């Protein structure tokens, strides 16, 4: 039920596309929009209360700690003269993507719910703001966003979180089943569930849920994106490759070696995974101070990267510079790009695989765009498969929606534990565990009563 999205909720989302652009907008719509905005917005001057259709200057703060998150321009627009015909608040932020996420987060903490795909438009339609022809487009949006193919990578990535939550879900379900069997079949000789056993499961689940919430707070890939560094010697076509991936001109592409002396960073949404691409200065012996600085920066970034895209020019023989870079990236998760297949080949794929020890190889032409789609899939695949190891342990991707779900589960687990401490009747504990399962169900899929019964019947011999 919760997934449907209640019509009376206040919804919020980042309204501008992913990326490192200077400004971005967080939009809220719904009856609570004004109240939430007033809670987190501190105007530089004038009253705290917001007046409709006025732009205000001030700061967004985390009200829990009164800590400033960003300097913003905020507009409140009272219903019905708005896009959705509900109260709408738009927050123009300045601090880049990470900050946008933080702003959205405090908005959600204030009581809004993250908007579903196409939901603002849907509301605009339901309120009669847009007409029937536009409604068709809404259907398309809703449909497109839920198209399995498009979302596949995100689904797979989420799969890692799902696995972790599924284990907890299973354990908790096991505890629930012992309680349900006990209370639903009073005439069978079924033992009372053990408080100790149930409490253990609750404690363990709580600890794990807290860990997962922590994984979000560590600021992992959903907030920062996956960092992928494009490396290779000078003039192998790194910048062209970046442009192909971004589908627009960002890096300066020339045929003069050493053009890219700065680290260029861009975010691109590949099949739902935010990938931050870093185009490195060619890692060679610097010829001047500017290059030296560029290379130093590149090395630093290299050590931060989750994934390395190593570019080799197929139309030239491998040289010492290539080999030096191979050594630099050794031991890191790397995929290999064999560029310039539009030119006559000088080296064989097998040769490069052997020298680098990397099996994951994509021949392409960054100039023409041949092979780019395969590479995109390869990048997503590598991320999905390997997760985002950085420094030490495996990190599970937790997005904001997951985090909210996990926080609700956490609160209920704490209540359930408190209830067991006070020895409340078992059926109340069952109700609380069910609610936790419902929340976790938003990540791993809903448990039907039929499944609970199935487990009861497979574990307990019941029958008249």
């Amino acid at each position, binding site marked *: 039920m919760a997934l449907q999205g209640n019509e009376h909720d206040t919804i919020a989302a980042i309204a501008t596309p992913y990326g490192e652009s200077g400004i971005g907008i967080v939009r809220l719509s719904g009856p609570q929009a004004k109240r939430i905005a007033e809670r987190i917005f501190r105007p530089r001057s004038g009253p705290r209360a917001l007046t409709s259709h006025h732009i205000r200057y001030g700061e967004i703060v985390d009200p829990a700690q009164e800590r400033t998150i960003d300097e913003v321009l905020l507009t409140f627009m009272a219903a019905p003269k708005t896009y959705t015909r509900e109260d709408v608040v738009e927050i123009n932020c300045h601090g880049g993507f990470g900050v946008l996420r933080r702003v959205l987060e405090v908005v959600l903490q204030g009581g809004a719910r993250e908007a579903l795909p196409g939901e603002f438009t849907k509301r605009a339609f339901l309120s009669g703001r847009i007409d029937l022809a536009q409604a068709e487009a809404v259907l398309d949006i809703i449909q497109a966003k839920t198209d399995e193919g498009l979302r596949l990578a995100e689904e797979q990535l989420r799969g890692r979180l799902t696995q972790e939550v599924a284990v907890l879900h299973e354990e908790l379900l096991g505890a629930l089943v012992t309680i349900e069997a006990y209370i639903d079949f009073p005439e069978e000789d079924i033992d009372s569930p053990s408080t100790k056993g149930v409490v253990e499961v609750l404690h363990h689940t709580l600890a794990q849920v807290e860990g997962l919430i922590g994984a979000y707070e560590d600021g992992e890939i959903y907030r920062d994106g996956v960092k992928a560094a494009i490396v290779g010697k000078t003039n192998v076509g790194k910048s062209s490759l970046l442009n192909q991936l971004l589908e627009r001109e960002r890096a300066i592409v020339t045929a003069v070696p050493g053009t890219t002396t700065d680290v260029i960073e861009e975010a691109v949404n590949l099949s739902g995974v935010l990938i931050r691409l870093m185009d490195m200065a060619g890692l060679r012996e610097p010829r001047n101070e500017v290059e030296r600085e560029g290379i130093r920066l590149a090395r630093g970034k290299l050590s931060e990267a989750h994934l390395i895209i190593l570019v080799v020019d197929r139309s030239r023989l491998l040289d010492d510079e290539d080999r030096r870079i191979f050594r630099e990236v050794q031991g890191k998760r790397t995929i290999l790009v064999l560029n310039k297949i539009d030119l006559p080949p000088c080296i064989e794929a097998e040769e490069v695989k052997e020298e680098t020890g990397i099996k994951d190889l994509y021949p392409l032409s960054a100039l023409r765009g041949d092979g780019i789609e395969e590479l995109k899939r390869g990048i997503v695949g590598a991320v999905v498969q390997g997760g985002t190891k950085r420094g030490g342990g495996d990190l599970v991707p937790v997005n904001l929606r997951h985090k909210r779900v996990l926080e609700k589960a956490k609160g209920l687990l704490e209540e359930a534990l408190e209830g067991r401490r006070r020895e409340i009747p078992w059926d109340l504990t069952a109700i609380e565990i069910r609610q936790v399962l419902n929340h976790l169900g938003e990540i791993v899929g809903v448990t039907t009563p039929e499944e609970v019964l199935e487990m009861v*019947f497979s574990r307990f011999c*019941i029958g008249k």
Partner: protein
Amino acid sequence: MAKNTDATAIQFRRLNTKKGPAVQSSRAQSDRQAYRLRMKYILENQPLLEMKQGEVDRILVKGGRVEGVATTINEAFNGQAVIVAPGTFLNGLIHIGLTHFPAGRLGELPSVRLSESLREIGFEMGRLKTGTTPRWDGKTITFSRLGKQEGDDPPRPFSFSTGGLPHEFLPCYITYTNPKTHEIIRSGFDRSPLFTGVIEGIGARYCPSVEDKVVKFPDKERHQVFLEPEGLRTHECYPNGLATSLPLDIQRKMLRSIEGLEKVEIMRPGYGIEYDYVNPIQLKPTLETKLVEGLYHVGQINGTSGYEEAAAQGIIAGINAALKVRGETPFTLDRSEAYIGVLIDDLVTKGTQEPYRMFTSRAEYRLILREDNADLRLMDKGHRLGLVDDKIYNRFVEKKEAIACELARLQKIKIRPTAGINDRLKILGSNPIKNVTSLEELLRRPEITYHDLKVFDPSHDALPPEVAEQVELEVKYAGYIRKQEGLVERFRSMERVRIPEDIRYDTTPGLSNEIKEKLSRIRPMTLGQATRISGVTPAAISILMVQLKRMGAV
């Protein structure tokens, strides 16, 4: 039915009294013959009701509307509404060992033609299986060697309106199977219709035969057997837990291997029975069929199993058939109002592949669907429908007022933290109070009962126990109850969005073919019901909402 149970009961027991407020349940055993005869007599005396007997073998339908029924001797009964409640008789086939024969119950003819008639109308049908236990002669049981289980004293009646109860009660007895019994059971597997593939109907997981239990739980050394008397004026005995379709010689041998049953004589053998059912997704929530206007199905024909399940459907179909004839709005209960609502919604939304039985775990709002507040949930509705007379209803209104009054009073009466008060709290095993505290706050403490409040409030007259019980539950579990009520509110907001009957799913853009097919087949009445159809995604619900808006339905 509750009243009839009270009048003919031979034992009352309340179950789960220590497991929590939501799952306490009354169990009563009635004298089977006395129950049947008394109920028949009540029906015979019901004004405007004529009773006829005969074997119906076809449903008369014209232009998608029911016209009546016809019997095997070509006698026709015409009417605007027909309720079909054929139990296990539809094409029934009984199995005892490898012997099988058509029957509705042991010794009674099956309804074969009626099943064909339903199929001809166009209903999609399936086959289920259930079973029953052998009945024994109580004179041949050594009761002294069995565990005895008396009913509650004092017993609590089933119906809120029952004043007095009968005085003669009977105990039940408990015994167990043993490894020897299981060995005998296994020795009959080669002649078991269940394991040799003779039975094709699907049985219920929760109600396995004893041979099923032995197979599924080979490590369990004993299974409980509950011996229930069939009535006051009979020696016949019903052993709960021993349903079987094994051959008669195996049945006898296995019984005699059980403690206390060494000399037992079987009066009637246990048997398995297969019967036809009509997949209940072909029903509206009123239990009227979608195919034939005015035709209602109840009980096993809808794939359910159990007395309460059948009774629950009977009352809803009965009410709706009457409303239909009178041209009034249909009556349904939703999942937050009664288990009846959970049952019927499950049936018409999900259908069933095995005999369906109600369990509390099927309900989302268990804490609200309590036995003790059944009158508070349903009495108003019953009165409005004319099923609850004014006398009973007025008594109920008084009770409701008394509860509200007492809740307000407990909030108002406050006690001060004096030494005397804190001493009394200590005696009750409760912590001292530091501030002025209302009786309501005190009652919220787990260790304080409503009865305990008397100590702090001596001037107050005692309330009827059913009022005190409601007050105590309402205060003690207020937090949990409010939380469930919040969920119910959310649930109802989706339930309120009605889907017009003329909606076309095949031309709704954006829905996958699978979802179109499901929605067209089940034709949910509300958006809420649509969300419960398996495979219907949140995105599909969004699309439906847009479509409804477009049709001007919301």
